[in-house]
């Protein structure tokens, strides 16, 4: 009985040509004839990739949320203890860092699917940030760079919380 169900589930069993198609196979030897259903659930190949993609997306979302929290704390600290202009520079740098991380995650997400190498397009973000900060006199360079690197504490926290991620 188990052999029959395993054969049906594995797809090795082929029904006879004379048996009517569409009619469920009935086991003749059993007292209570039951319809044979595959006892082993066949795995759909797309399920693995879909769940792993969801896992990657949720990891990105956790990192972005942590970065926003770290940015909020650092911004409040800067407003209270340093300067208003320094806080604006820090927020600008932090959002540049988030944009950089988003572009990096996007290029890593397409690695192996659309491209064979990770693009370097995200490196333009710190270049543009430094150029903007040096051109505008209201903004300060050091807080902007510190803000840009605020994604690293969130990465470290994420790595410490979930080492297998």
């Amino acid at each position: 009985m188990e052999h029959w169900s395993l054969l049906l589930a594995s797809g090795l069993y082929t029904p006879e040509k004379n048996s009517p198609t569409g009619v469920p196979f009935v086991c003749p030897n059993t007292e209570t004839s039951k319809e044979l259903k595959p006892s082993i659930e066949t795995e759909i190949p797309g399920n693995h990739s879909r769940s792993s993609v969801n896992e990657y997306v949720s990891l990105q979302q956790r990192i972005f949320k942590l970065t926003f929290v770290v940015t909020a704390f650092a911004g409040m600290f800067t407003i209270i203890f340093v300067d208003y202009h320094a806080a604006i520079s820090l927020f600008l740098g932090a959002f540049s860092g988030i944009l950089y991380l988003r572009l990096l995650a996007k290029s890593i997400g397409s690695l192996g699917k659309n491209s064979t190498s990770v693009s370097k397009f995200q490196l333009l973000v710190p270049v543009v940030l430094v150029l903007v900060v040096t051109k505008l006199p209201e903004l300060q360079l050091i807080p902007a760079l510190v803000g840009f690197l605020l994604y690293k504490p969130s990465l470290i926290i994420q790595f410490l919380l979930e080492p297998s991620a």
Partner: protein
Amino acid sequence: MDSITTAASVVAAGLAVGLGAIGPGIGQGSAAQGAVEGIARQPEAEGKIRGTLLLSFAFMESLTIYGLVVALVLLFANPFAG
């Protein structure tokens, strides 16, 4: 800014970016190779592999960014400019 300081700043900026990108470039290449091989062997672990790759890339590429920032500061906000 005198000409010697300008020339030294430009050379130092080039060296900072060039030398600073060698190590992370090699590391990122080998990491990407390992990740793609791992995904090909175990497609069910694709999410975890990509997540680990994202974290390691972010840490590796920050070394390149340090060199890039030093070069940009030397070029556009040089502290040695008199």
